[in-house]
């Protein structure tokens, strides 16, 4: 796989499109400037939003101001370079992994063609090795002897505005999906380099609104949309009508902020307001009713997703802390988590060290099967797919698979749950028991090698739709294959960002393929006490054999 030119880091990266000019200018990669044009960058954070964050966590988000990404004056603080270099120093001391990732890349090129952004754009700076090199070159310049002595010859370059622009461009064309790390012989995780670079960018006030505003909303009202408790509750309750229409059963179990419940259920807020997440939410409620789970939902921690993860570890910690605070206030025994991607990344990798151990909670134990979830012994938080798969395994669910016969289903492994926490088989186990027509996508596009939806880490915003489509190409390309080969018309997943962004991706790349959560399919299959003869699924689509 070694790519000699990349290996030498003398990559020529610019070439005019064929026939357009006749000229073929080539330059070394670091001579090529990042040019911002409408459609290739996210809107910067609003002044009011940055002010809001600065009140809560001073010193992390730089100076609040209006600034224009396309201009050459980003209104940076005078000492911005110093802030960044000191920031790198601090992080090198604090995070050993960063130092290792800076030093140990041998530029073998194994990761070069593994990133969905590279595969969809053809831009060499989207090769993970080069992405990290954007950072590493500055590190070399200021923190290695060779870099200090030899400069460019040793691959070192000082921090300049040009470099800053490059960082803003390419660390926001990385969804921190970690696919590259799977192929790296040294396990170098470019996602972590991106996280560090984004933290540094934040320090000098270079940021994006789509991340900062949801994070502000999550802090303020508990969910990224800033829905206030009554609205959140009303939206959720409204879905009971839809459930009744489809199943004939009026659920009585939906409740909020109830002290003394056994389980606190936390899920991505998009599941109560956005299509198709709402159908996943219906699935959760049907499941809980089916097994008589004693649970409650908190309107204070009504967002599973943690937008802090995309900014700075302090904000991530603060937002995450709400889960335990609320579990304590409500006096629950343990926490159940819904179908969310980055919520689980945070939970699995950081929650315990940041805010744990949650000694005030009990070891999670399924009240229905008695299974003790020892894997969650410290965080006390169980994934709904684990929980559901255990119920199925113990024969506790009455299921009629044929109610999903009108669908031909495939499964997209969300990066965060698949690579981030190794949750690979449980969702598949549920799907096998909830539907008859299931087909996997090709081996090199699923499980640990799954391709990102293309819009994670706060890139799921409308102004960069073209870029999102490019990043989403490798995933969509694999879906297309199963669509053509098996007639797949439903792409299931266990992540709210996927549910939102794969929808747009499918509309563009593979019309005819809808997107759903795994719990939605379970909800269709669950045989409820007192139900009517089902004519439609939860979306109101006729079941197989029930078409007009």
């Amino acid at each position, binding site marked *: 796989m070694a*790519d000699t*030119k990349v290996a030498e880091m003398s*990559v*020529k*990266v610019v*070439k005019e*499109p*064929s*026939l*357009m000019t006749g000229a073929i200018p*080539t330059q070394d990669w670091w001579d090529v400037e990042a040019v911002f044009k409408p459609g290739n960058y996210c809107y910067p954070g609003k002044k009011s*939003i940055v002010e*809001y964050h600065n009140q809560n966590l001073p010193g992390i988000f730089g100076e609040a101001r209006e600034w224009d990404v396309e201009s050459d004056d980003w209104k940076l603080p005078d000492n911005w370079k110093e802030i960044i270099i000191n920031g790198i120093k601090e992080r090198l001391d604090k995070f050993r992994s960063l130092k290792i990732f800076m030093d140990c890349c041998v530029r073998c090129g194994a990761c*070069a*063609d593994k990133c969905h952004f*590279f*595969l*969809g*754009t*053809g*831009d*060499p700076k989207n*090769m993970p090795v080069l992405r990290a090199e954007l950072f590493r070159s500055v590190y070399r310049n200021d923190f290695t002897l060779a870099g200090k002595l030899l400069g460019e010859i040793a691959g070192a370059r000082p921090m300049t505005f040009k470099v800053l622009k490059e960082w803003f461009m390419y660390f926001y064309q990385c969804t921190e999906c970690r696919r590259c790390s799977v192929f790296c012989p040294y396990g170098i995780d470019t996602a972590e380099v991106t996280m560090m670079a984004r933290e540094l960018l934040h320090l000098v006030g270079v940021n994006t*609104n*789509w991340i900062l*505003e*949801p994070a*502000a*909303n999550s802090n303020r009202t508990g969910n990224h*949309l*800033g*829905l*206030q408790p009554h*609205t959140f509750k*009303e*939206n959720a309750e*409204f879905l009971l009508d839809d459930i009744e229409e489809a199943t004939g059963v009026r659920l009585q179990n939906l409740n909020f902020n109830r002290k003394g419940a056994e389980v606190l259920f936390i899920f991505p807020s998009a599941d109560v*307001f*956005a*299509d198709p997440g709402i159908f996943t939410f219906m699935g959760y409620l049907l499941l809980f009713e089916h097994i008589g789970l004693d649970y409650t939902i908190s309107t204070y921690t009504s967002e599973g997703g943690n937008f802090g993860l995309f900014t700075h570890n302090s904000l991530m910690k603060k937002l995450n802390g709400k889960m335990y605070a609320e579990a304590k206030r409500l006096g629950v025994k343990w926490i159940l988590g819904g179908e969310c991607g980055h919520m689980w990344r945070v939970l699995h990798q950081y929650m315990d060290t940041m805010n744990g151990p949650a000694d005030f909670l009990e070891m999670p134990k399924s009240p229905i099967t008695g299974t003790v979830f020892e894997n969650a012994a410290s965080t006390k938080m169980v994934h709904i797919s684990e929980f559901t798969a255990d119920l199925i395994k113990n024969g506790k669910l009455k299921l009629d698979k044929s109610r999903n016969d009108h669908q031909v289903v495939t499964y997209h492994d969300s990066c965060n749950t698949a690579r981030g926490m190794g949750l690979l088989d449980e969702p598949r186990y549920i799907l096998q028991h909830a539907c008859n027509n299931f087909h996997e996508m*090709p081996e*090199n596009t699923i499980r640990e090698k799954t391709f990102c939806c293309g819009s994670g880490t706060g890139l799921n915003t*409308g*102004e960069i*739709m*073209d870029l999102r*489509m*490019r990043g989403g*190409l*490798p995933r969509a*390309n*694999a879906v*297309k*294959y199963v669509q053509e080969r098996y007639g797949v018309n439903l792409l299931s997943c266990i992540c709210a960002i996927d549910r*939102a962004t794969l*929808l*747009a991706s499918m*509309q*563009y790349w593979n*019309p005819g393929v809808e997107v759903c959560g795994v719990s939605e399919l379970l909800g269709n299959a669950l045989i409820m006490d007192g139900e009517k003869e089902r004519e439609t699924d939860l979306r109101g689509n006729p079941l197989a054999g029930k078409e007009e």
Partner: protein
Amino acid sequence: MALAHLLQENKGEILEKWISRVLASYPDDAAMIFQREKDRFANPIGYNTRHALTALYDLLFSGDQPDPAKVAAVVEDFVKIRAVQTFTPAAAVAFVRDLKVVVREYCRKQKDAAPALADWHRFEDTLDAVSDQVFDLYMACRERLYKARLHEISHMNHMLTQHGCPSSLLDADQSAKTAVNPIHIHSNEAR
């Protein structure tokens, strides 16, 4: 030699040149990888380029004038890719014209291959027609992209606007912002 015959006889060589030329619209290092990697899932751009151009070549030179429906079927996925990349519209669809150049260069190098003028005209007319069609396909892709974006905006909001979210009381000048980014409407306090 008749041009049609030449194009069929030398398909392998001409096609490879065409594919290389189109892939050369990407930066060198990318073009190299897109050229080399044969797994269609590990290399969607390379695979789709090769696949579409091969199928189009067969359609173009299998005898009759190519059927537009068939042309659309073989190039659509490929045009879809080009339509969201950083090319200008002209550059995105230039791959049809690239074939003219490749064939012309090929003929120039073959001493005994000087196709008749009429042949050339027929060949160019065919490619021009396909070129026009490809541009229409390109525009359809762009339109589809905007529709997907509109759908995303409207679907994130519809539950809220229907069910009495306070945001529905926001004044009209805020709606311009919501059209850009639905999240704005819910953060009056934070604004």
